[in-house]
């Protein structure tokens, strides 16, 4: 955690978008790499880099099925990732509340 309690793995715009997008799916569902890329608007290389960091933290899980032209890489938020986002959201709300006048 950073000083203000915000998870540094999530507290990066691209990774925050990735985690929020995956969290909008029902629990247990996954999203193909290409659809995620389309929704986030990153190059494949950048998306892979961010996914690797999230995967290292245990927040997402990637799985490759098939081979050749039928290959599909899917990305899913783990329970840990969902809990981390919930915690991050709580901290953001608290910080916004404490910053608001009155």
């Amino acid at each position, binding site marked *: 955690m950073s000083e203000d309690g915000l998870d540094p793995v999530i507290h990066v715009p691209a990774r*925050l978008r990735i985690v929020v997008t995956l969290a909008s*799916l*029902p*629990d*247990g569902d996954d999203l193909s790499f290409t659809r995620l890329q389309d929704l986030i608007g990153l190059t494949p290389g950048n998306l892979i880099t961010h996914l690797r960091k999230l995967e290292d933290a245990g927040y997402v899980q990637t799985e490759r099925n098939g081979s050749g032209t039928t290959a599909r890489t899917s990305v899913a938020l783990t329970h840990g990732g969902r809990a981390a986002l919930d915690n991050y959201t709580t901290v953001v709300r608290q910080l916004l509340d404490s910053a608001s006048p009155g």
Partner: protein
Amino acid sequence: MNAQAGMRGGAGEAAGMDVQSAAAIMREAHQRARRELRARRPVLFAAWGLVVLIGYGAMWLSVRGQHPFHGPTVPAVVTLVALFLVAAVLTAWLVDRASTGVGGPSVLQRGSFVLALAAGGFALSIFTHVVANAGADRPLVTLIGAAAPLLVVGVVFVASCAVNGMLDWPRLALGLWLLAVAAEGGWAGPVTYLAVIALAGGGGILLMAAIEPRMRRS
């Protein structure tokens, strides 16, 4: 920092992202994901509401004043079937667009939902023909044939209203309403029944199209 600014940073760590920016990014990403990854139910409800309102309305107009009663005319039935096909194609397109790239349990849930609607509708349409073939008179056949789609959709909606551990209130409310219209409307007799379904059934679905976003937010 604006929400897009961090995106242009590619894989680089966007040091110094403030809390307001983080909240804006979360809000925007959540709204976009909901918009892109979910079939637009108000649009679907509006399409099917119009099918029921216009289709059943056309059938009612075709039987109004018939003496003796011999059932909806062919042009009226063709109108309903044509509207049904248009709405079915629109539904398939919207659902396919939203679910592209999505995998997991919800795909199976959606498949079983569609299968239940298709199998129920098919079984009841056959049963309606069986009843007609057994010598039932036209008013009875019209009552059963008119009620069948509402009964199937109502039962399937109520049976599938618990999704991912949460109650889907719009689906439950609409399912119960369609069952009530199908069951109670029949007391009005075969001619008025078609008008009841058009107005109460179709109107109910259109009303749900209007209030569904608010019900889901609350």
